[in-house]
Protein backbone atom coordinates (compact mmCIF):
# COMPACT_ATOMS: atom_id res chain seq x y z
CA UNK A 1 0.00 0.00 0.00
CA UNK A 2 1.12 3.52 -0.71
CA UNK A 3 2.30 4.99 2.60
CA UNK A 4 0.55 8.38 2.34
CA UNK A 5 2.11 10.85 4.81
CA UNK A 6 -1.31 12.27 5.72
CA UNK A 7 -2.55 8.88 6.90
CA UNK A 8 0.64 8.06 8.80
CA UNK A 9 0.57 11.41 10.57
CA UNK A 10 -3.12 11.05 11.27
CA UNK A 11 -3.00 7.60 12.80
CA UNK A 12 0.08 8.23 14.95
CA UNK A 13 -0.80 11.71 16.24
CA UNK A 14 -4.45 11.07 16.89
CA UNK A 15 -3.59 7.68 18.43
CA UNK A 16 -1.30 9.45 20.87
CA UNK A 17 -3.80 12.27 21.49
CA UNK A 18 -6.69 9.92 22.22
CA UNK A 19 -4.38 7.82 24.40
CA UNK A 20 -3.65 10.92 26.48
CA UNK A 21 -7.36 11.81 26.61
CA UNK A 22 -8.09 8.28 27.86
CA UNK A 23 -5.76 8.76 30.85
CA UNK A 24 -6.97 12.31 31.50
CA UNK A 25 -10.55 11.05 31.50
CA UNK A 26 -9.65 8.50 34.15
CA UNK A 27 -8.18 11.29 36.26
CA UNK A 28 -4.56 10.40 35.62
CA UNK A 29 -3.09 12.89 36.31
CA UNK A 30 -5.92 14.59 38.23
CA UNK A 31 -4.80 18.05 37.20
CA UNK A 32 -6.77 21.28 37.47
CA UNK A 33 -6.36 24.91 36.44
CA UNK A 34 -3.50 25.95 34.23
CA UNK A 35 -1.70 22.58 34.32
CA UNK A 36 -4.89 20.92 33.16
CA UNK A 37 -5.18 23.49 30.40
CA UNK A 38 -1.71 22.58 29.12
CA UNK A 39 -2.49 18.85 29.20
CA UNK A 40 -5.77 19.24 27.34
CA UNK A 41 -4.23 21.63 24.83
CA UNK A 42 -1.60 19.01 23.97
CA UNK A 43 -4.17 16.22 23.77
CA UNK A 44 -6.53 18.23 21.54
CA UNK A 45 -3.70 19.47 19.32
CA UNK A 46 -2.64 15.87 18.69
CA UNK A 47 -6.10 14.37 18.28
CA UNK A 48 -7.64 17.18 16.22
CA UNK A 49 -4.43 17.81 14.25
CA UNK A 50 -4.36 14.15 13.31
CA UNK A 51 -8.01 14.17 12.27
CA UNK A 52 -7.46 17.25 10.12
CA UNK A 53 -4.42 15.65 8.48
CA UNK A 54 -6.60 12.70 7.53
CA UNK A 55 -8.88 14.93 5.47
CA UNK A 56 -5.97 15.96 3.24
CA UNK A 57 -6.12 12.78 1.23
CA UNK A 58 -9.82 13.14 0.48
CA UNK A 59 -10.97 14.04 -3.01
CA UNK A 60 -13.75 16.22 -1.58
CA UNK A 61 -12.93 17.35 1.99
CA UNK A 62 -15.82 19.84 1.91
CA UNK A 63 -18.30 16.94 2.03
CA UNK A 64 -16.52 15.18 4.90
CA UNK A 65 -19.53 15.70 7.19
CA UNK A 66 -21.42 13.13 5.13
CA UNK A 67 -19.06 10.52 6.56
CA UNK A 68 -20.99 10.59 9.85
CA UNK A 69 -24.09 9.08 8.30
CA UNK A 70 -23.26 5.41 7.73
CA UNK A 71 -22.24 4.31 11.22
CA UNK A 72 -24.48 1.27 10.95
CA UNK A 73 -22.25 -0.40 8.38
CA UNK A 74 -18.99 1.53 7.95
CA UNK A 75 -16.04 1.50 10.35
CA UNK A 76 -14.79 4.75 8.86
CA UNK A 77 -18.09 6.39 9.70
CA UNK A 78 -18.05 4.90 13.22
CA UNK A 79 -14.58 6.31 13.71
CA UNK A 80 -15.83 9.79 12.83
CA UNK A 81 -18.75 9.50 15.24
CA UNK A 82 -16.60 8.16 18.10
CA UNK A 83 -14.01 10.88 17.57
CA UNK A 84 -16.58 13.67 17.71
CA UNK A 85 -18.31 12.24 20.80
CA UNK A 86 -14.95 11.72 22.54
CA UNK A 87 -13.81 15.26 21.77
CA UNK A 88 -17.11 16.82 22.88
CA UNK A 89 -17.41 14.85 26.11
CA UNK A 90 -13.76 15.32 27.01
CA UNK A 91 -14.15 19.02 26.17
CA UNK A 92 -16.87 19.36 28.82
CA UNK A 93 -14.79 17.38 31.28
CA UNK A 94 -11.81 19.64 30.53
CA UNK A 95 -13.93 22.75 31.19
CA UNK A 96 -14.68 21.41 34.65
CA UNK A 97 -11.04 20.63 35.33
CA UNK A 98 -9.61 23.86 33.97
CA UNK A 99 -12.11 26.45 35.15
CA UNK A 100 -13.93 24.91 38.09
CA UNK A 101 -11.23 22.74 39.53
CA UNK A 102 -13.57 19.77 39.64
CA UNK A 103 -13.56 16.33 38.06
CA UNK A 104 -16.90 15.12 36.83
CA UNK A 105 -15.79 11.54 36.86
CA UNK A 106 -18.78 9.97 35.09
CA UNK A 107 -18.16 12.32 32.15
CA UNK A 108 -14.46 11.46 32.32
CA UNK A 109 -15.18 7.75 32.16
CA UNK A 110 -17.48 8.17 29.16
CA UNK A 111 -14.90 10.36 27.43
CA UNK A 112 -12.14 7.84 28.14
CA UNK A 113 -14.28 5.05 26.74
CA UNK A 114 -15.00 6.94 23.52
CA UNK A 115 -11.33 7.93 23.19
CA UNK A 116 -10.34 4.27 23.19
CA UNK A 117 -13.28 3.45 20.92
CA UNK A 118 -11.93 6.00 18.43
CA UNK A 119 -8.57 4.25 18.29
CA UNK A 120 -10.30 0.87 18.00
CA UNK A 121 -12.56 1.99 15.17
CA UNK A 122 -9.56 3.47 13.34
CA UNK A 123 -7.82 0.12 13.55
CA UNK A 124 -10.94 -1.69 12.33
CA UNK A 125 -10.91 0.34 9.10
CA UNK A 126 -7.74 -1.56 8.25
CA UNK A 127 -8.52 -4.83 9.98
CA UNK A 128 -11.78 -5.37 8.09
CA UNK A 129 -10.04 -5.47 4.70
CA UNK A 130 -9.76 -9.06 3.53
CA UNK A 131 -7.98 -7.74 0.47
CA UNK A 132 -4.91 -6.92 2.60
CA UNK A 133 -4.09 -10.10 4.53
CA UNK A 134 -1.38 -8.42 6.60
CA UNK A 135 -4.01 -6.11 8.11
CA UNK A 136 -6.81 -8.64 8.31
CA UNK A 137 -5.67 -10.02 11.71
CA UNK A 138 -6.77 -9.61 15.36
CA UNK A 139 -3.30 -8.28 16.10
CA UNK A 140 -4.01 -5.10 14.12
CA UNK A 141 -6.46 -3.57 16.63
CA UNK A 142 -4.29 -4.92 19.45
CA UNK A 143 -1.33 -3.05 18.00
CA UNK A 144 -3.20 0.25 17.50
CA UNK A 145 -4.67 0.13 21.00
CA UNK A 146 -1.41 -0.83 22.70
CA UNK A 147 0.50 1.94 20.92
CA UNK A 148 -2.12 4.47 21.93
CA UNK A 149 -2.18 3.34 25.56
CA UNK A 150 1.61 3.25 25.87
CA UNK A 151 1.97 6.69 24.30
CA UNK A 152 -0.86 8.07 26.42
CA UNK A 153 0.70 6.68 29.60
CA UNK A 154 4.06 8.21 28.71
CA UNK A 155 2.55 11.62 27.94
CA UNK A 156 0.32 11.70 31.00
CA UNK A 157 3.24 10.80 33.24
CA UNK A 158 1.73 7.56 34.49
CA UNK A 159 5.07 6.41 35.88
CA UNK A 160 3.94 3.10 37.27
CA UNK A 161 1.98 2.01 34.22
CA UNK A 162 4.08 3.38 31.37
CA UNK A 163 6.92 0.81 31.47
CA UNK A 164 4.43 -2.08 31.48
CA UNK A 165 2.34 -0.65 28.69
CA UNK A 166 5.47 0.01 26.63
CA UNK A 167 6.63 -3.57 27.14
CA UNK A 168 3.22 -4.96 26.18
CA UNK A 169 3.05 -2.75 23.08
CA UNK A 170 6.56 -3.85 22.10
CA UNK A 171 5.60 -7.52 22.42
CA UNK A 172 2.46 -7.02 20.34
CA UNK A 173 4.49 -5.18 17.71
CA UNK A 174 6.89 -8.12 17.40
CA UNK A 175 4.02 -10.60 17.21
CA UNK A 176 2.32 -8.47 14.55
CA UNK A 177 5.43 -8.47 12.39
CA UNK A 178 6.03 -12.19 12.84
CA UNK A 179 2.46 -13.17 12.02
CA UNK A 180 2.02 -10.58 9.30
CA UNK A 181 4.92 -11.92 7.26
CA UNK A 182 3.09 -15.14 6.49
CA UNK A 183 -0.39 -13.63 6.21
CA UNK A 184 -0.52 -13.30 2.43
CA UNK A 185 0.54 -16.89 1.86
CA UNK A 186 -1.94 -18.13 4.48
CA UNK A 187 -4.81 -16.22 2.85
CA UNK A 188 -4.63 -18.71 -0.02
CA UNK A 189 -5.15 -16.04 -2.67
CA UNK A 190 -2.87 -16.44 -5.68
CA UNK A 191 -2.89 -15.39 -9.30
CA UNK A 192 -4.44 -18.83 -9.83
CA UNK A 193 -7.54 -18.06 -7.73
CA UNK A 194 -7.64 -14.44 -8.92
CA UNK A 195 -8.02 -15.54 -12.55
CA UNK A 196 -9.68 -18.87 -11.87
CA UNK A 197 -7.07 -20.36 -14.19
CA UNK A 198 -4.88 -21.88 -11.45
CA UNK A 199 -6.49 -25.31 -11.88
CA UNK A 200 -5.13 -25.47 -15.43
CA UNK A 201 -1.48 -24.82 -14.64
CA UNK A 202 0.96 -22.15 -13.60
CA UNK A 203 -0.41 -18.68 -14.30
CA UNK A 204 1.96 -15.87 -15.19
CA UNK A 205 1.10 -12.24 -15.91
CA UNK A 206 2.06 -11.89 -19.55
CA UNK A 207 0.96 -8.39 -20.49
CA UNK A 208 -0.46 -5.61 -18.32
CA UNK A 209 -3.57 -3.81 -19.57
CA UNK A 210 -1.68 -0.60 -20.26
CA UNK A 211 1.94 0.33 -20.77
CA UNK A 212 1.68 3.17 -18.26
CA UNK A 213 0.83 3.12 -14.59
CA UNK A 214 -2.59 3.71 -13.03
CA UNK A 215 -4.42 4.54 -9.81
CA UNK A 216 -4.43 0.91 -8.68
CA UNK A 217 -0.70 0.47 -9.06
CA UNK A 218 0.09 3.79 -7.40
CA UNK A 219 -2.24 3.14 -4.49
CA UNK A 220 -1.81 -0.59 -3.88
CA UNK A 221 1.52 -1.74 -5.21
CA UNK A 222 4.25 -0.02 -3.28
CA UNK A 223 7.51 -1.90 -3.39
CA UNK A 224 9.95 0.97 -2.96
CA UNK A 225 11.72 0.76 0.37
CA UNK A 226 10.46 -2.70 1.27
CA UNK A 227 13.98 -4.03 0.95
CA UNK A 228 15.00 -1.96 3.98
CA UNK A 229 12.15 -3.35 6.01
CA UNK A 230 14.26 -5.33 8.48
CA UNK A 231 16.47 -2.36 9.28
CA UNK A 232 13.47 -0.07 9.62
CA UNK A 233 11.84 -2.55 11.96
CA UNK A 234 14.86 -2.44 14.23
CA UNK A 235 14.88 1.36 14.15
CA UNK A 236 11.14 1.49 14.87
CA UNK A 237 11.44 -0.96 17.75
CA UNK A 238 14.42 0.81 19.31
CA UNK A 239 12.82 4.27 19.04
CA UNK A 240 9.29 3.32 20.02
CA UNK A 241 10.01 0.99 22.94
CA UNK A 242 13.61 0.40 23.98
CA UNK A 243 14.80 3.99 24.21
CA UNK A 244 11.67 5.35 25.97
CA UNK A 245 11.84 2.49 28.47
CA UNK A 246 15.48 3.27 29.26
CA UNK A 247 14.76 6.98 29.51
CA UNK A 248 11.92 6.64 31.99
CA UNK A 249 13.66 3.97 34.06
CA UNK A 250 16.81 6.05 34.56
CA UNK A 251 16.84 6.97 38.24
CA UNK A 252 16.77 10.75 38.00
CA UNK A 253 16.51 13.25 40.80
CA UNK A 254 15.00 16.67 40.28
CA UNK A 255 11.70 17.50 38.63
CA UNK A 256 13.28 19.31 35.67
CA UNK A 257 15.53 16.44 34.67
CA UNK A 258 12.69 13.99 35.09
CA UNK A 259 10.39 16.05 32.87
CA UNK A 260 13.10 16.42 30.32
CA UNK A 261 13.70 12.67 30.19
CA UNK A 262 9.98 12.00 29.80
CA UNK A 263 9.81 14.54 27.00
CA UNK A 264 12.68 12.77 25.22
CA UNK A 265 10.94 9.45 25.77
CA UNK A 266 7.71 10.76 24.22
CA UNK A 267 9.56 12.20 21.22
CA UNK A 268 11.43 8.96 20.67
CA UNK A 269 8.25 6.90 21.03
CA UNK A 270 6.40 9.08 18.53
CA UNK A 271 9.25 8.86 16.01
CA UNK A 272 9.31 5.08 16.41
CA UNK A 273 5.55 4.88 16.07
CA UNK A 274 5.76 6.80 12.79
CA UNK A 275 8.39 4.45 11.38
CA UNK A 276 6.29 1.50 12.46
CA UNK A 277 3.21 3.02 10.85
CA UNK A 278 5.14 3.70 7.65
CA UNK A 279 6.03 0.01 7.55
CA UNK A 280 2.42 -0.89 8.32
CA UNK A 281 1.44 0.66 5.00
CA UNK A 282 4.53 0.07 2.89
CA UNK A 283 4.67 -3.65 3.69
CA UNK A 284 0.94 -4.26 3.26
CA UNK A 285 0.28 -6.15 0.06
CA UNK A 286 -3.10 -5.80 -1.63
CA UNK A 287 -4.34 -8.86 -3.52
CA UNK A 288 -5.06 -6.74 -6.60
CA UNK A 289 -1.30 -6.61 -7.20
CA UNK A 290 -1.56 -10.25 -8.26
CA UNK A 291 -3.45 -9.27 -11.41
CA UNK A 292 -0.41 -7.25 -12.38
CA UNK A 293 2.04 -10.00 -11.47
CA UNK A 294 3.20 -7.88 -8.53
CA UNK A 295 2.75 -7.72 -4.80
Amino acid sequence: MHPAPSVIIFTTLSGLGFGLLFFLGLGQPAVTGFVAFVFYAIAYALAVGGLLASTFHLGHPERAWKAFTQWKSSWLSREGVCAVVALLVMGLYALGAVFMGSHWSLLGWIGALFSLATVFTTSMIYTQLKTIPRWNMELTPAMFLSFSLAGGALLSGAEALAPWLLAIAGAIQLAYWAKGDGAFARSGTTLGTATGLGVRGDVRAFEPPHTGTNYLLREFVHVVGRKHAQKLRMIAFALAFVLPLLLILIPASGVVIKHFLVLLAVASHLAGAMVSRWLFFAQAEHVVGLYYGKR
Partner: protein
Amino acid sequence: MTQLPQSTERKMGLVIDLDTCVGCHACVISCKGWNTENYGAPLSDQDAYGGNPSGTFLNRVHSYEVQPADGHAQLIHFPKSCLHCEDAPCVTVCPTGASYKRVEDGIVLVNESDCIGCGLCAWSCPYGARELDMAEGVMKKCTLCVDRIYNENLPEVDRVPSCVRTCPAGARHFGDLGDPDSDVSKLVAERDGMDLMPEMGTKPVNKYLPPRPKDTVEDQIDILAPLLAPVAEEPKGFLGWLDKTLEKI
Protein backbone atom coordinates in the same frame (compact mmCIF):
# COMPACT_ATOMS: atom_id res chain seq x y z
CA MET B 1 -27.40 3.80 2.02
CA THR B 2 -24.44 1.51 2.40
CA GLN B 3 -26.12 -1.44 3.98
CA LEU B 4 -26.48 -4.17 1.40
CA PRO B 5 -29.98 -5.24 0.39
CA GLN B 6 -31.02 -8.69 1.70
CA SER B 7 -31.61 -9.78 -1.87
CA THR B 8 -32.13 -8.12 -5.21
CA GLU B 9 -35.01 -8.61 -7.63
CA ARG B 10 -32.64 -9.35 -10.49
CA LYS B 11 -28.91 -9.92 -10.73
CA MET B 12 -27.86 -8.14 -13.84
CA GLY B 13 -24.31 -8.86 -14.85
CA LEU B 14 -21.81 -9.94 -17.46
CA VAL B 15 -20.57 -13.30 -18.58
CA ILE B 16 -17.11 -13.13 -20.09
CA ASP B 17 -15.90 -15.89 -22.34
CA LEU B 18 -12.16 -16.37 -21.90
CA ASP B 19 -12.20 -18.83 -24.76
CA THR B 20 -13.30 -16.32 -27.37
CA CYS B 21 -11.75 -13.08 -26.11
CA VAL B 22 -9.03 -12.12 -28.56
CA GLY B 23 -7.58 -9.34 -26.41
CA CYS B 24 -8.34 -6.54 -28.87
CA HIS B 25 -9.23 -4.01 -26.10
CA ALA B 26 -12.21 -2.72 -28.11
CA CYS B 27 -14.39 -3.01 -24.99
CA VAL B 28 -11.88 -0.89 -23.05
CA ILE B 29 -12.09 1.90 -25.61
CA SER B 30 -15.86 1.84 -26.05
CA CYS B 31 -16.31 1.84 -22.27
CA LYS B 32 -14.00 4.80 -21.89
CA GLY B 33 -15.81 6.64 -24.66
CA TRP B 34 -19.36 5.99 -23.49
CA ASN B 35 -18.63 6.72 -19.84
CA THR B 36 -16.73 9.88 -20.62
CA GLU B 37 -19.51 11.32 -22.72
CA ASN B 38 -22.46 10.24 -20.62
CA TYR B 39 -23.45 9.43 -17.01
CA GLY B 40 -21.41 11.05 -14.25
CA ALA B 41 -17.99 12.66 -14.18
CA PRO B 42 -15.89 12.04 -17.30
CA LEU B 43 -13.05 9.50 -17.11
CA SER B 44 -10.06 11.79 -17.10
CA ASP B 45 -6.52 11.25 -18.34
CA GLN B 46 -3.39 12.79 -16.92
CA ASP B 47 -0.43 13.61 -19.12
CA ALA B 48 -2.25 11.86 -21.97
CA TYR B 49 0.25 12.89 -24.64
CA GLY B 50 3.32 13.12 -22.41
CA GLY B 51 5.94 10.68 -21.24
CA ASN B 52 3.95 9.16 -18.39
CA PRO B 53 0.30 8.88 -19.38
CA SER B 54 -2.27 7.50 -16.98
CA GLY B 55 -6.03 7.67 -16.74
CA THR B 56 -9.25 6.31 -15.32
CA PHE B 57 -10.66 3.14 -16.86
CA LEU B 58 -13.62 1.05 -15.75
CA ASN B 59 -12.57 -1.98 -17.73
CA ARG B 60 -9.08 -3.24 -18.39
CA VAL B 61 -7.87 -6.26 -20.33
CA HIS B 62 -4.97 -8.26 -18.89
CA SER B 63 -3.19 -11.12 -20.63
CA TYR B 64 -1.98 -14.22 -18.82
CA GLU B 65 0.07 -17.22 -19.81
CA VAL B 66 -0.92 -20.56 -18.37
CA GLN B 67 1.62 -23.35 -18.41
CA PRO B 68 0.00 -26.74 -17.76
CA ALA B 69 2.02 -29.55 -16.14
CA ASP B 70 2.43 -31.07 -19.59
CA GLY B 71 1.65 -29.60 -22.96
CA HIS B 72 1.97 -26.17 -24.41
CA ALA B 73 1.56 -22.85 -22.68
CA GLN B 74 -1.66 -21.02 -23.46
CA LEU B 75 -2.22 -17.27 -23.71
CA ILE B 76 -5.48 -16.05 -22.22
CA HIS B 77 -6.84 -12.53 -22.53
CA PHE B 78 -8.68 -11.43 -19.47
CA PRO B 79 -11.06 -8.46 -19.38
CA LYS B 80 -11.81 -7.24 -15.88
CA SER B 81 -14.37 -4.75 -14.60
CA CYS B 82 -16.72 -4.52 -11.61
CA LEU B 83 -18.33 -7.91 -10.90
CA HIS B 84 -21.35 -6.34 -9.14
CA CYS B 85 -20.80 -8.63 -6.16
CA GLU B 86 -23.77 -9.82 -4.11
CA ASP B 87 -21.76 -9.36 -0.93
CA ALA B 88 -19.96 -6.24 -2.05
CA PRO B 89 -17.41 -5.08 0.54
CA CYS B 90 -17.03 -1.79 -1.35
CA VAL B 91 -20.59 -0.85 -0.39
CA THR B 92 -20.46 -1.55 3.33
CA VAL B 93 -17.14 0.22 3.94
CA CYS B 94 -18.37 3.50 2.43
CA PRO B 95 -18.78 6.12 5.17
CA THR B 96 -21.01 8.50 3.24
CA GLY B 97 -23.62 6.29 1.67
CA ALA B 98 -22.31 7.18 -1.78
CA SER B 99 -21.76 3.54 -2.70
CA TYR B 100 -24.86 1.42 -2.95
CA LYS B 101 -26.31 -1.69 -4.50
CA ARG B 102 -29.64 -1.34 -6.24
CA VAL B 103 -32.50 -3.55 -5.07
CA GLU B 104 -34.16 -3.70 -8.48
CA ASP B 105 -31.26 -5.06 -10.53
CA GLY B 106 -28.29 -5.56 -8.20
CA ILE B 107 -26.12 -2.96 -9.95
CA VAL B 108 -23.47 -1.43 -7.69
CA LEU B 109 -23.22 2.34 -8.17
CA VAL B 110 -21.55 5.42 -6.73
CA ASN B 111 -23.56 8.57 -6.10
CA GLU B 112 -20.90 11.04 -7.14
CA SER B 113 -22.37 14.03 -5.34
CA ASP B 114 -22.03 12.19 -2.00
CA CYS B 115 -18.59 10.65 -2.57
CA ILE B 116 -15.78 12.28 -0.58
CA GLY B 117 -13.08 10.40 -2.47
CA CYS B 118 -11.67 8.66 0.60
CA GLY B 119 -10.75 5.67 -1.54
CA LEU B 120 -11.70 3.07 1.05
CA CYS B 121 -14.06 1.26 -1.31
CA ALA B 122 -11.21 0.77 -3.78
CA TRP B 123 -9.12 -0.64 -0.93
CA SER B 124 -11.84 -3.16 -0.14
CA CYS B 125 -12.37 -4.40 -3.70
CA PRO B 126 -10.23 -7.48 -4.41
CA TYR B 127 -10.56 -7.05 -8.16
CA GLY B 128 -9.26 -3.53 -8.68
CA ALA B 129 -12.60 -2.53 -10.15
CA ARG B 130 -12.74 0.97 -8.68
CA GLU B 131 -10.52 3.86 -9.61
CA LEU B 132 -10.44 7.33 -8.09
CA ASP B 133 -10.62 9.92 -10.81
CA MET B 134 -7.69 12.28 -10.43
CA ALA B 135 -9.48 15.25 -11.98
CA GLU B 136 -12.85 14.93 -10.21
CA GLY B 137 -11.73 13.42 -6.91
CA VAL B 138 -14.60 10.94 -6.93
CA MET B 139 -14.72 7.18 -7.25
CA LYS B 140 -15.48 5.75 -10.68
CA LYS B 141 -16.62 2.24 -11.45
CA CYS B 142 -18.53 0.19 -14.01
CA THR B 143 -22.23 1.13 -13.96
CA LEU B 144 -23.21 -1.73 -16.24
CA CYS B 145 -24.20 1.19 -18.46
CA VAL B 146 -27.34 2.06 -16.47
CA ASP B 147 -27.82 4.90 -18.92
CA ARG B 148 -28.02 2.48 -21.88
CA ILE B 149 -29.73 -0.68 -20.71
CA TYR B 150 -33.06 1.02 -19.87
CA ASN B 151 -32.74 3.84 -22.38
CA GLU B 152 -35.78 3.88 -24.64
CA ASN B 153 -34.20 6.52 -26.87
CA LEU B 154 -31.78 3.89 -28.10
CA PRO B 155 -32.66 1.16 -30.58
CA GLU B 156 -33.30 -2.06 -28.71
CA VAL B 157 -30.15 -3.73 -29.98
CA ASP B 158 -28.11 -1.01 -28.26
CA ARG B 159 -29.72 -1.46 -24.85
CA VAL B 160 -26.80 -3.49 -23.52
CA PRO B 161 -23.57 -2.29 -21.92
CA SER B 162 -21.27 -0.57 -24.34
CA CYS B 163 -18.56 -3.24 -23.99
CA VAL B 164 -21.00 -6.03 -24.84
CA ARG B 165 -22.30 -4.15 -27.88
CA THR B 166 -18.78 -3.50 -29.10
CA CYS B 167 -17.00 -6.84 -28.63
CA PRO B 168 -16.20 -8.08 -32.14
CA ALA B 169 -15.57 -11.62 -30.92
CA GLY B 170 -18.84 -12.00 -29.05
CA ALA B 171 -16.93 -12.75 -25.87
CA ARG B 172 -19.16 -10.65 -23.62
CA HIS B 173 -22.74 -11.46 -22.66
CA PHE B 174 -25.21 -9.46 -20.60
CA GLY B 175 -28.30 -10.63 -18.75
CA ASP B 176 -30.02 -11.60 -15.51
CA LEU B 177 -27.86 -14.11 -13.66
CA GLY B 178 -30.51 -14.42 -10.96
CA ASP B 179 -32.90 -16.08 -13.42
CA PRO B 180 -31.85 -19.70 -14.01
CA ASP B 181 -33.67 -19.73 -17.37
CA SER B 182 -31.93 -16.70 -18.84
CA ASP B 183 -29.50 -17.18 -21.72
CA VAL B 184 -26.56 -16.07 -19.60
CA SER B 185 -27.43 -18.47 -16.78
CA LYS B 186 -27.70 -21.34 -19.26
CA LEU B 187 -24.35 -20.39 -20.72
CA VAL B 188 -22.78 -20.38 -17.28
CA ALA B 189 -24.26 -23.78 -16.48
CA GLU B 190 -23.16 -25.28 -19.77
CA ARG B 191 -19.61 -23.98 -19.72
CA ASP B 192 -18.88 -24.24 -15.98
CA GLY B 193 -18.75 -20.49 -15.43
CA MET B 194 -16.53 -19.56 -12.51
CA ASP B 195 -16.11 -16.90 -9.81
CA LEU B 196 -12.91 -14.92 -9.37
CA MET B 197 -11.29 -15.20 -5.91
CA PRO B 198 -14.21 -17.12 -4.37
CA GLU B 199 -12.23 -17.23 -1.09
CA MET B 200 -12.88 -13.49 -0.63
CA GLY B 201 -16.56 -14.21 -0.04
CA THR B 202 -17.75 -11.41 -2.29
CA LYS B 203 -20.09 -13.64 -4.34
CA PRO B 204 -19.51 -11.96 -7.70
CA VAL B 205 -22.48 -11.80 -10.07
CA ASN B 206 -20.30 -11.63 -13.18
CA LYS B 207 -19.03 -15.02 -14.28
CA TYR B 208 -16.06 -16.09 -16.37
CA LEU B 209 -16.21 -18.98 -18.83
CA PRO B 210 -12.93 -20.91 -18.78
CA PRO B 211 -11.12 -21.55 -22.06
CA ARG B 212 -12.14 -24.77 -23.75
CA PRO B 213 -9.51 -27.53 -23.76
CA LYS B 214 -7.15 -27.23 -26.70
CA ASP B 215 -6.63 -29.93 -29.30
CA THR B 216 -3.66 -32.10 -28.47
CA VAL B 217 -0.95 -32.94 -30.95
CA GLU B 218 -0.32 -36.71 -31.16
CA ASP B 219 3.29 -37.88 -30.99
CA GLN B 220 3.47 -38.87 -34.67
CA ILE B 221 0.79 -37.73 -37.01
CA ASP B 222 2.81 -37.32 -40.22
CA ILE B 223 3.37 -40.62 -42.00
CA LEU B 224 5.92 -39.03 -44.37
CA ALA B 225 8.05 -37.67 -41.56
CA PRO B 226 10.17 -40.83 -41.15
CA LEU B 227 11.17 -40.58 -44.80
CA LEU B 228 12.48 -37.09 -44.18
CA ALA B 229 14.84 -38.16 -41.41
CA PRO B 230 18.38 -36.92 -42.11
CA VAL B 231 20.35 -39.52 -44.09
CA ALA B 232 23.78 -38.98 -42.64
CA GLU B 233 23.83 -38.14 -38.99
CA GLU B 234 27.63 -37.95 -38.74
CA PRO B 235 29.49 -36.30 -41.64
CA LYS B 236 31.91 -38.71 -43.29
CA GLY B 237 34.91 -38.37 -45.63
CA PHE B 238 36.29 -34.91 -46.29
CA LEU B 239 33.49 -33.17 -44.45
CA GLY B 240 34.04 -35.45 -41.50
CA TRP B 241 37.73 -34.66 -41.48
CA LEU B 242 36.96 -30.91 -41.74
CA ASP B 243 34.48 -31.15 -38.92
CA LYS B 244 36.93 -32.92 -36.62
CA THR B 245 39.80 -30.56 -37.50
CA LEU B 246 37.70 -27.48 -36.95
CA GLU B 247 36.58 -28.91 -33.63
CA LYS B 248 40.18 -29.24 -32.49
CA ILE B 249 41.22 -25.67 -33.25
